[in-house]
């Protein structure tokens, strides 16, 4: 019973997360340009530029390259008739088990970037918790949503 959950999330998630990382680095770049201007016009100390460059480099390595890769490798899920199992986390690996009878409702959501990559995020709600599987293939998510909601029959008096 204790193997990893079988399904991986879509490989396009990788590109999506890289784009997110790049956006983040872009914001830092804008800030650094502002700092650069300050150095140029008001004579702020120049080592600030070095720090800014360092941060951008670090961000490119971490949030564009390493983190998306590790995150994607770790993300696994499996939906059976009786339960939903999730595994995620880079440094702290979390494995979650949600029995099907506890599921109250399932939603899918899709932002503009996700739509561009034909991905969508599915969130599974119990009476007390919400569990998300990010960046699933659009159609897969849709099928999953349908199958979970047909499998989930909540025993009402338990809530």
């Amino acid at each position, binding site marked *: *019973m*204790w193997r990893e959950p079988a399904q991986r999330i879509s490989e396009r998630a990788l590109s999506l997360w890289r784009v997110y990382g790049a956006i983040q680095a872009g914001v830092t770049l804008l800030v650094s340009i502002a700092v650069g201007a300050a150095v140029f016009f008001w004579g702020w100390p120049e080592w600030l530029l070095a720090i800014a460059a360092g941060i951008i480099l670090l961000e490119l390595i971490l949030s564009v390259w390493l983190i998306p890769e590790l995150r994607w490798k770790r993300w696994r899920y499996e939906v059976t*008739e*009786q*339960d939903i199992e999730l595994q995620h*986390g880079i*440094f*702290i*690996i*979390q*494995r*979650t*088990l*949600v*029995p*099907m*009878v*506890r599921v109250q409702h399932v939603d899918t959501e899709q932002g503009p970037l996700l739509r561009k990559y034909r991905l969508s995020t599915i969130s599974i709600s*119990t*009476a*007390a*918790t919400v*569990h998300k599987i990010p960046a699933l293939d659009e159609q897969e998510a849709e099928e999953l949503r349908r199958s979970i909601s047909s499998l989930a029959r909540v*025993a009402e*008096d*338990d*809530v």
Partner: protein
Amino acid sequence: MYEPKRLHPVSAVINFVKGLKDSALPIIALIFLNGNIFSGEVEWMPLLITVGFLLLVLGGGVIRWLRFTYRVEQGELRIEHGLILRKKRYIPFHRIQSLDFSEGIFHRPFNLVKVSIETAGSSDLQKAEAELTAIKREDADELETIISREKNKRTIEEDGIEEDRVISSREKVYEMKMKDIVVMAITSGGAGVVLSGVGVFASQLTEVLPLGTIYSEFLAWLRIGVLVVAFAAFVILLIAYGISILLTIFRYANFSVFLDADDLVITRGWLEKKQMTIPLNRIQGLRIDENLIRQPLGYASVTLVSAGGAVQQGAEHQLRLLPLIKKKEIEQVLHQMISDYELDVEWNRPPSRSKRRYILRHSWFAWLAVIPLSIFLFPYGLLAILAALAFTGIGFLAYKDAGWNLSDQQLTLKSRFINKQTFVMKRKRIQSAAVTQTILQKRVDLESIRVTLKSGVGGAVARCLYLDKQDTRQMMDWYRPNDKVEKRSDL
């Protein structure tokens, strides 16, 4: 009870007072604007505005009372109210989870109660589904009987059993001793709450005052007497502590628990009497708390984790089933109320290799802080070492107090962050379970478990850290639904 009824006229007064409380700030501001009222030079505009404002609040209270009616019709409680917009709210009886009664100082002289109606799906987080501000005690009792009769009729119809159930067979199952209430007041964290209130007040004061001038005077003052400051602080502390003790005693006086058919009924309070009803089938689990002061004295408190409608925030509203009780008495008292929770279990412990992890988790920040504190605030900074030692001690206690037990249908987890908490949970009430493991713990096969119960609108999380992988897996396998059709009958 079928004709529309009004609330008792006192509720107009209560509305007024509540309105005043809500609009206290603008009124105070107006009074301050009108600063010279006592020196004869009255500025008429602000005064008029104040008076007008008060009249508006008063009028609002009266009109709200006039427009509020409730009646019982076709198995529903029907409430109509609203100042300008007429609002109607019909609540079917079978959706009503519980009626909570409370009596404030306005209620007592007229033998009135405030009734809060709790349903399963209140959308508002902090309010009950509906509230009857003040009605006669007899009316409230009648309402309760009608509702429970209708509800029972319904369940009997559903079960197909022709059997008249005895309604309101109230049986007292627990009464808190005065001695316990006093001990609770003395050992409660309430003192801290009052103190932080004083602190907030003081911090706001410093913003208003001209700090620069005060600072130089303060230095002079400091030379005269650190003692004076210390003494003043001590007195404030003592007063705050006293107030918190008195408040707790007033709040929890006459605390008793009744078993009424399928409900637990908790009543308490001196000046303001409160009655809460918790249907037994809404109970999701139990939490037993022991804080650092109470644990050595052998005391603990028991809180219900309940899926009740409204989330009641604040310690005052928590569903304290047994606010303070000798730990060895819990089992016996609880057995009369909810018999299927097993408390006296054999504990499994985390392995010895997780001891240093517990200690590190609780004390690393303290030891880290010791270095700069000792260097920059020498020699007083060295005192930080004592604090760090204390945190190390708590870490060790956390290791000692962690544990778990698994039985057929029940999971029990105990852990300590600062206070020791024990969660008693039934398998069918657990909403989700997760194990976590950092990559460092992977090498030594340690895992932590976290289990979520439904509590109010949100969840209550029970956890136990750094257990052997075998153990957490055993718990997860126990939780994993494994037979094709879960036995619905035992739910």
